[in-house]
């Protein structure tokens, strides 16, 4: 039994005793103090509270000392809270004032940090007014009332009570504060003129339990994010207690707050405040009755707010647009020092979430990007900016090119290979979004959620231009980086995606791989690239060409057909027919190579056979491994047919291509 448990046992035994051994008490107390930063489990808290209230021998100082150590691990149960409250109200005439005050402080700390269910404490709301009569307790009681009051609690009777107390003890800051709060909820109950008082100074004397409770709150928050059954939504509410808001850094996404002008009686409809909803489901059920907070930007803080924005009405979205634009302009282009790096990153992150949620770009964000890209250094917030670029809106290709794509090209050419890859990846997603979402919406003639915007650009031409731009970038990148595999992979991914989407959506476009990609694949040391390129070539032959011919567009794509035949000729003559240099005029890559040059290859190898399956440097490692693993194959020479068998098992794409083209 460790020291902590002994200490708790000691306190349990104290219950009912009249006297206590001072030394033992202090040692146990110190033990508990040491454990306070970890917090106590719920039963332990209950035991300690029990001990606290039932031990009659505890003088005020010891009471306070013990109470200060009682810090929950996460939450405090109803039972403990109720016990303490009952004790307060039973003994508030007789118990020492210090103990009562510290008990109230503890309660305030629990509520401020959200460590207990407010409803339980609220049940005693009416009784707290009794505590106001005691001058020394009134500050703490006022604070507690201030925290717990909801608009429906305000009544003239209560106001009169407070006024009576003011008459008795004189005008104090804390009572004025309370009156102010009541007045803001229901001005008709407080017609007297109430001076405005700062909350912080009014309640300065109260609430010293902070450090440990803060830790408990952190523990609580860390835990709740793991709950997946119901999506718990946490709101960053403006508690009004932050001093010197104007001195510290400003939040780009302001905290949620409601500002009402005029009495509640005159408000039109009964609307629900957003803060009432803890799960996404309940929020969406009441979507039409929601009261929108005063700052539309504050809804960007979490997924529930984003949901409200996405399905909000036109005026809300307009407001958001204006504020979003000005905030972005101020934070990124005017580089206002009030915004920290993290704040800016946060804003961008939340905008990305909003756009992803709505599956639509926001025009003001696109305009902001257009202004920001020329000044961007390519490094700050790179991930977020790329994400935003995937959803960019525009009205014609020329505009897009001049304002956005030009800068992207510059960035591409001047950055490292990883950034090049992410740019190609980003453009990949961009084209995907255009095809899957924008064209889809156009076809169905529906508009997006945000301000019902429709895209006006001409579909096919724009798409073709954008794809051509990406192809040029790929080629340039591969040339500069000398066929780096990272880039090749991204480029191949783009072409695979394009082909797949064209097929699915039956678009009359044929995106063909440029020679840079094809021949980098043919000459690569990785069999996977070879396989992928073969697969794509086969698709062109078997799927794309027949489809387009069926649509009657054969004449439009003559160049592509030609190109494709050249590629196939090269592949077959290199891989299978063993005459790639003899037949070089029929292909693409070796065309026009002078004979003397070909002759010089004889120094190294037999040129015609260098790229065949049995000699291809991408496949040789597999052969070597096979020979190493199996002794029977040690000295065997592998010929073309053997390799075809291997390919049919491991690289079916190569196999299929060769079979298909041999017919």
């Amino acid at each position, binding site marked *: 039994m460790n020291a902590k448990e002994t200490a708790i046992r000691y306190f349990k035994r104290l219950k009912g005793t009249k006297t206590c051994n001072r030394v033992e008490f202090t040692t146990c107390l110190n033990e508990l103090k040491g454990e306070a930063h970890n917090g106590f489990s719920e039963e332990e808290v209950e035991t300690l509270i029990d001990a606290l209230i039932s031990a009659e021998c505890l003088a005020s100082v010891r009471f306070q000392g013990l109470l200060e150590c009682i810090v929950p691990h996460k939450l405090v149960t109803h039972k403990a809270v109720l016990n303490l409250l009952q004790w307060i109200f039973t003994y508030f005439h007789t118990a020492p004032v210090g103990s009562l005050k510290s008990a109230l402080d503890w309660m305030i700390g629990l509520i401020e940090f959200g460590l207990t269910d407010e409803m339980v404490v609220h049940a005693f709301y009416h009784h707290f007014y009794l505590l106001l009569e005691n001058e020394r307790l009134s500050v703490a009681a006022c604070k507690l009332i201030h925290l717990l009051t909801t608009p429906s609690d305000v009544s003239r009777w209560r106001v009169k009570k407070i006024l009576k107390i003011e008459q008795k003890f004189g005008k104090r800051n804390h009572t004025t504060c309370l009156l102010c709060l009541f007045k803001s909820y229901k001005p008709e109950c407080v017609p007297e003129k109430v001076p*405005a008082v700062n909350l912080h100074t009014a309640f300065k004397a109260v609430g010293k339990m902070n450090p440990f409770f803060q830790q408990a709150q952190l523990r609580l928050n860390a835990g709740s994010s793991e709950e997946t059954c119901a999506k718990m939504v946490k709101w960053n509410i403006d508690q*009004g207690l932050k001093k010197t808001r104007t001195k510290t850094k400003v939040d780009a996404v302001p905290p949620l707050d409601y500002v009402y002008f005029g009495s509640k009686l005159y408000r039109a409809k009964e609307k629900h405040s957003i803060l009432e909803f803890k799960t996404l489901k309940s929020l969406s059920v009441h979507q039409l009755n929601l009261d929108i907070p005063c700052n539309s930007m504050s809804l960007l803080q979490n997924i529930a707010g984003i949901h409200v924005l996405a399905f909000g009405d036109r005026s809300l979205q307009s407001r958001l647009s204006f504020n979003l634009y000005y905030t972005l302009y101020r934070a990124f282009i005017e580089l206002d020092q009030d915004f920290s790096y993290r704040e800016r990153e946060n804003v961008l992150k939340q905008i990305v979430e909003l756009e992803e949620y709505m599956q639509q770009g926001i*025009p003001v964000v696109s305009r902001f990007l257009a202004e920001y890209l020329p000044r961007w250094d390519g490094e700050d917030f790179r991930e977020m900016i790329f994400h935003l670029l995937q959803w960019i809106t525009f009205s014609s290709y020329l505009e897009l090119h001049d304002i956005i794509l030009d800068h992207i090209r510059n960035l591409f050419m001047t950055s490292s290979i990883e950034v090049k890859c992410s740019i190609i990846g980003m453009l990949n997603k961009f084209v995907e979004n255009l095809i899957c979402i924008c064209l889809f919406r156009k076809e169905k003639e529906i508009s997006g959620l945000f301000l019902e*915007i429709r895209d006006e650009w001409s579909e096919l031409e724009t798409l073709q231009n954008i794809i051509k731009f990406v192809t040029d970038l790929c080629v340039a990148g591969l040339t500069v980086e000398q066929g780096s595999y990272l880039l090749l992979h991204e480029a191949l991914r783009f072409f695979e995606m394009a082909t797949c989407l064209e097929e699915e959506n039956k678009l009359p476009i044929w995106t063909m791989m440029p020679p840079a990609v094809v021949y980098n694949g043919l000459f690569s040391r990785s069999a996977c690239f070879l396989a992928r390129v073969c697969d794509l070539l086969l698709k062109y032959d078997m799927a794309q060409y027949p489809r387009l011919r069926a649509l009657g567009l054969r004449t439009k794509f003559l160049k592509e057909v030609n190109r494709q035949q050249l590629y196939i000729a090269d592949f077959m003559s290199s891989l299978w027919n063993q005459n790639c240099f003899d037949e070089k005029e029929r292909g693409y890559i070796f065309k026009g190579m002078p004979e003397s040059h070909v002759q010089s290859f004889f120094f190294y190898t037999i040129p015609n056979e260098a790229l065949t399956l049995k000699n291809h440097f991408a496949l040789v490692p597999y052969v070597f491994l096979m020979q190493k693993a199996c002794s029977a194959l040690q000295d065997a020479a592998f010929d073309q047919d053997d390799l075809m068998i291997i390919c049919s098992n491991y690289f079916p794409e190569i196999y299929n291509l060769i079979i298909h083209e041999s017919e």
Partner: protein
Amino acid sequence: MSTPRSLTKRRRLSTKLHTPGSVFGIRNRNHDKAEQENDSQVQYTVRPERLYFNIHDSDSGSDEDYNDLEDLTGKTWKVFRVSPLHNFEYTTVRMKQYGQRMREGLTTLLTDSTLDAHYEVNFSVAEGLTLTQNDSEAIKILVNVTKRKNGEDLRSKYYIGFMVCRGASKGLEEQFTIHLPVLLCSGTVRAAKSVHFLLQKFFDCSVNSYQLSQEDLMWFCALQADEKDTRKGMSQAELMFSFPQLSVRNRIRFKVPLNSLKYLWDSIHDRNSEYASFKEVEKFYEAVQQQMIRVFEVNVAKGQLVRIKTPTLSVTNETKLRAKTGSVLNYVLKFLYEGTAVIDTTTPMLSVQRH
């Protein structure tokens, strides 16, 4: 964004005198008139660039029309840009409530030294500051503070702000949203910050500081040179520059006789045209710079123009402005308004196209 208008027509558009202020478009980046290759020219820019500014609002003529601007002349203002205000009502009841709320807000925000301070906030409509029928009425915000010092109550002005809209070409379509883009205020930095924070909270708007670019200051230079000077004696214009090698606080002031500026301007500007074009302004400014380099032997082209001060107008690039007469203030306000034009949030178009 406003569309380019016809240059030559001079019509009265409404009973409130309003002639088109500026013409926007894209400047021709090619200085040689000869080649015009279509492909290499930039077709699109994001922000429309000012091509022409109408300075001869002269059909309005006399100074009496500017009496309404009396409140604003002769004082130094800091200018802010405000996005459209949401849910702002012009009724007296609401104005009172806004005042009250702001008072409470200020008391909570501004603590430490002002424990005994009591604030009074007053929202009111300032008459006569509008120009066209699409302009919303201007709002005046007045904050007074009463401090207790040595047993006496000292009442002083803490913050004055005017939210003005002057020269709107069309109204905003939304209900309950009004557009008062230019905010002229005077008060300490802290006061301004607190008041603006509360405004942003109440009406869901953004209040940003308005920065003037070098180009804008060039325009002001030219416009001041254009004015008819009825003063006797030599009046001087003072141009303040900041240089990269000097620290931020050290700026160099150059005093230039106003007559020479006028002379330069007159020789460049075509008197018959109502509009001052960007090309003229550019040429004028270059000429001024060359002359200054020759006379003062300081290469001002390397520096940034920070402030222009003439007998009638003083303007800095963080936009602190002080105008002595109503007519000057009139066109300054028009100029400032154009810098804050409303963004169309619904079209996906990113930019302005060259026609």
